[in-house]
């Protein structure tokens, strides 16, 4: 019996990677679905889902399932499969197209400062926040998951570039420590 074998987006890229005060590892997100309500259906959608779609730059969590704000009128359901939402929203699977990594450690914020133009101070990007931004030249979703923990979601095809550029920033930050 022939079956197709799965490969994760960051397979073969040398993760987890630990350099200085930061660690980079692949995150298995599980199912990821884009949910975009049709005109005037946001209310009915919230009822069917059991929760309203998150406000911009916010994450709504329940158990292991998260709803991330993902753009105007859109959210990403991470870690779960949505119920039948026909007629209420465009529901599109997105998980295979995403590479997800976790960047953690005392140096994690300094590493990100080399990669994203975002204000990463606690006041601007607290735990539970998310943002759509650029990581060097790539569009990416950034999540703050802990005091010194972040998740980065990028496009699967650019996984190699993502891991390489974050790794380089980690080495540069660690390189300063010896001064």
């Amino acid at each position: 019996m022939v079956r197709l074998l799965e490969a994760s987006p960051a397979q073969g890229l040398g993760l987890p990677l630990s350099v200085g005060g930061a660690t980079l590892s692949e995150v298995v997100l599980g199912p990821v679905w884009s949910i975009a309500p049709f005109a005037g259906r946001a209310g009915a959608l919230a009822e069917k889902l059991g929760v309203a779609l998150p406000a911009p730059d916010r994450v709504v969590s329940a158990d292991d399932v998260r709803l991330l704000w993902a753009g105007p009128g859109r959210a990403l359901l991470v870690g779960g499969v949505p119920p039948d939402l026909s007629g209420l929203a465009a529901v599109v699977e997105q998980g295979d197209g995403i590479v997800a990594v976790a960047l953690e450690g005392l140096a994690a914020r300094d590493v990100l400062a080399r990669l994203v133009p975002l204000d990463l101070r606690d006041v601007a990007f607290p735990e539970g926040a998310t943002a759509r931004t650029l990581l060097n030249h790539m569009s990416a979703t950034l999540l703050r998951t802990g005091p010194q923990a972040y998740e980065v979601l990028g496009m699967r095809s650019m996984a190699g570039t993502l891991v390489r550029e974050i790794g380089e920033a980690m080495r540069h930050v660690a390189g300063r420590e010896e001064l």
Partner: protein
Amino acid sequence: MRVACPFCGDRDRREFTVQGDDTSLRRPGRDAGPLAWHDYVHLRDNPAGRLHEIWHHDPCGAWVVVERDTVTHAVHGVTLAREAAR
């Protein structure tokens, strides 16, 4: 230059693509005639002063209208293109 995306907040200009002034908000009807269409596709005012421009915030996909002063570079307001007056 920094522009405030209504969803994402204050962001650096590098996250945006500038399409040009907001003429696109006033698209003529299909049969409005060649002069109206020539005007719409090719002719633009170039004021030294306030201008409404259409910008795209690439990371989140929002199209916005930015009111900007071309002389002082001050940004006077950002609204969603979807909700802009036509």
